[in-house]
């Protein structure tokens, strides 16, 4: 299971990559593994304004569905349209092709509250992952 060093993480099993004043986020390798085969992803409209921990979409697997929570407050710039036709990208490449949302960062200070790769890996280990 991968936990790339350059990313930050949330307790809700999402990852965040900072790119200038933008953030890109998706769900972690652990999350996709727990969900199993992903069949559908519901994402917000570009332009949507999200507060940290807002439910902004959902990921649907065969027998389970989970809400997605905004890791930081932000304004959606783009969503990964390719996931509509090929949601399995999230299974195959959670940190790459399986990205979900690109957004303009609201409050940069919130980034400090995210977990490091090491801290997240520890959390996953506690969950038996």
């Amino acid at each position, binding site marked *: 299971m991968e936990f790339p060093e350059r990313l930050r993480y949330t307790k809700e099993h999402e990852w965040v990559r900072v790119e200038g004043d933008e953030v890109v986020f998706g769900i972690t390798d652990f999350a996709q593994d727990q969900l199993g085969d992903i069949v559908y992803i519901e994402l917000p409209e570009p332009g949507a304004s999200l507060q940290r921990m807002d439910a902004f979409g959902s990921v649907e697997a*065969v*027998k389970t569905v989970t809400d997605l929570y905004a890791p930081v407050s932000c304004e959606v710039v783009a969503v990964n349209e390719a996931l509509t036709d090929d949601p399995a990208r999230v299974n195959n490449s959670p940190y790459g092709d399986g990205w979900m949302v690109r957004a303009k960062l609201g409050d940069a200070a919130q980034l400090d509250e995210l977990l490091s790769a090491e801290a997240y890996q520890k959390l996953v280990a506690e969950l038996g992952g």
Partner: protein
Amino acid sequence: MSYIGHTREEEARMLGEIGARSFEDLLEQVPAAQRMTAPLDLGPPLTETELRRYFASLAARTYDPNAVVSFLGAGIYDHAIPACVDHLALRSEFYTAYTPYQAEVSQGTLAVSFEFQTMICELTGLEVANASMYDGASAAAEALLLARGATRASKVLLAPGVSPRTRAVITTHLSGQMEIAQVPEIEGRVDVAALRAALCGDEDIAAVLVQQPNFYGLLEPMDAIGAAVSAMGEKPPHLVVSADPVSLGVLAPPAQWGAQTVVGDVQPLGTPAQFGGPTAGYFATRRTHIRRLPGRLVAEAYDAAGRRGFTLTLQTREQHIRREKATSNICTNSALIALRATVYLAMHGAEGLRQVAAACMRGSHYALSRLERIAGVERIYPGAFFREFAVRLPIDAEQLVGRVRDVAGILAGVPLSRFDPTRPRDLLVAVTETRSRTEIDALVEAVRRSISA
């Protein structure tokens, strides 16, 4: 009869292996205060012979549908049922199976559901249909709840010709959740100008529900209704149509009028009246609403070797996964009745269904034309109708129904006073393809005699 798998001696041995001294040991969890102290107050067990005798005595105190000619409709119709429908529905493999959770040993049930879904799509013109609902009325309520979710609006408009029973069921289900208003009536149908006005004045309307043919058997002007609803901007309210499936043999599929959801009851397709239940509802909608669809849905699936099969899908919409966020709480639905409808439609094909519908129209028009010749009997609503029509009588309708039954062994129709006490002389008469000319003539003669009696 006992259907228990072991004797008391075997039970004693099983208890021994469990490690219990007696059955009572197994009940240690049940607090003494909650234990029954007296035996249940029920009668002694009956044998099969006694059961048959008792049920036959109950049946003898209802009318005999094989001897009585019925012109009753109002939601339940007496269409011919091909013999093979019941024979196939009586296969243990179908009727003693559970919900097809283990797809690999449920391909029979699943394939039938897939066929049913397809047939409903073909009849309604819509893209997605589920595996069935409890009945047409609750399906209509679910369709309105879907519209609420999709439009985020909170009011529904009901056409005046929606069956009073469907209306009542909707009212119960939607109470506290959606506001219900009525579309004004003109000659028993939707007043399209008034509908347009109602829609223009209110942005909080989630859906308009129209029944076709309506409760009085009348054909609603679906083209004009559809145009009025779809003219309401980019995100118009949902047009929801409750359509009789037999009528769809001759009528245009409701999707043509822009219907977002089409619902109805498949009882006319091969299920006997059974005093009103069980029947099955059907539910068809647009592909865009597939994740809001209530109930069970079957999809094509393949195994590793590429063999085609079928499986329940999108179970994430359902209560056992989504819990309080589920699209609906329905689980057990009406699969066996949907099977009956599927076999019925397979037996008829498009041409057979068209012929059934056409025969209903011919018979009902003939019956009305003859009844109208009786002095004092008049047709209530002008214009096109299907299978069913309302007439006003010179005498009380309940009284007439009683007399016609007594003199001729015919159930003449459903008095509308049951639904609206201000209509004591109005009678709803249904004529299906099972009614012969002789029977219709006998009805007319019996009505004539009963009126002049």
